[in-house]
């Protein structure tokens, strides 16, 4: 298991906001929902395209193209057309820094 790595700071992402980062050579989307921060692989498991601008409802992110939804806490697919999960990352907050680690 790799170590935590800083990818962003809290003041870069407003509440309800998001940031695209590259972590472990992959595109990752960091989401701030309420007081919590989540990080998911920025690729829809259905069509292989980015989730970057997909709307967030509660703790789910919706794919902007075909409407697949994923739980950002664990990557589980919540509705068709996605049947496979997406990767999620462990998030640690240290002061103002947001750090990620692979699960």
């Amino acid at each position, binding site marked *: 298991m790799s170590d935590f790595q800083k990818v962003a700071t809290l003041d870069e992402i407003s509440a*309800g906001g*998001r940031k*695209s980062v*590259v972590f472990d050579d992959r*595109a990752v989307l960091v989401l701030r929902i309420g007081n919590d921060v989540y990080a998911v692989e920025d690729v829809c498991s259905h069509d*292989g395209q980015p989730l970057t601008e997909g709307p967030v409802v509660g703790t789910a992110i919706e794919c902007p193209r075909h409407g697949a939804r994923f739980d950002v806490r664990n990557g589980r697919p919540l509705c068709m057309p996605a049947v496979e999960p997406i990767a999620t990352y462990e998030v640690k907050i240290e002061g103002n820094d947001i750090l990620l680690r692979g699960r």
Partner: protein
Amino acid sequence: MSTSATIATPIVSRAAGFSRADFESFLKSRREPNWLVARRQAAFDTYEQKLSEPLSPEEYKRVDLRAFQPARFAVGAAAPAPAQFETLLEKRAEFGGAVSHLDGHCVVARLDEKLAGRGVLFGSLAELLQTKRDLLEPHLMSRAVRADADRFAAWHAAFCTGGTVLYVPKNVAVEAPLYSLIGLSAAGAADFSHTLVILEDGASATLLEETGSATPANAGLHVGAVELLVGAGANLRYVQLQNWNQQVWHLGHQAGRVARDASLQWTVGGIGARLAHIHQEVTLDGPGASGEVNGVTFATNRQLLSYYTQQTHKAPSTRSDLLYKDVLRDEARVVWRGMIRVDPDAQKTDGYQRNDSLLLSADCRADAIPGLEIEADDVRCTHGATAGRVDAEQIFYCMCRGLSRYEAMHMIVEGFFHGVYDRIAVEAVRETLSHAVKRKLGIDR
């Protein structure tokens, strides 16, 4: 709901390495004649303009370049120290000549004296462009790969570091194959090499090219171009075996033009690279022209290997035949988007394209998208794509014959690729591809 998205920086930024200032110092370091400098400057302007435009979604939608950071790479000003390469092809045949490039610098250029005596040119593009300008300039990036084709073609044209030229005069047959190596050695090295092959009418030749890394870990960048210009009645066999380590980014624009009654047999092997995207075009310009394209791709770990192929029929009674076979394992991804275009005049066209993918793991993914665009009304054009897992019954059958599951799997992979090996006329290439696949499977070192 708030979506104040912070979108990632543009795919190819103007960051250090390839900015205008870097381009100017690159030009200074090359000391080239004015006509060449002017071409580069025009290409750099095009590159800057293309950077502000989005990439064509049809070609690049499935090529995830978000983790690509061009600023990590730079063109080295001086030739690097000689490096040892474990080449796959070099020792497998008797070659009539060899050209090697390392980190964009030509380190070997050798041609059989008899061939040189018959007017064949085979050597470094950077050098021959200056000494044989009249012969090469009209062909360079004018008919096959154009600098304004897309962002990567323009980037290549601006920073082209050299490459291999093969010129065969009218009615000269080069019997022995020729060999070209594109090598990357230093960490962060960038290679913008250009392969230019010109066969005059009635000529024939075979060029085997491979790419390779001196180390398994050093990241590199290759932004290349291949131009294959086949004159009337000429016959070219060209092979490019991409065998970088898995840290290299490979972006290639490759195009062949085939004249009346000429034939081009083109084989691409995709073994290495972290991400490779190849734009491959075959244009059949004259009646009776024929193009055959063979692809062998084996992707493992997190590799993404992508091909965008076009077979363009511009004249009547032309034939094209494309077969790509991909094997994927681990979390690898292979994308193939193919298109057959038939112009209104190209009656009696015979066009075929096919892609087969064999998936060895649950997490790999193959996207195959064949396409036809036909404007003539008397043609035969067909296409097909298949994707599937290894058949459990085939494995069971092999195991009943005493093979382990591991051996059975490998035998099935070998068998799968045989369909395309059988089409490759050059024995050394068949052997090399088979060896490369076995080595990657881990059964032959």
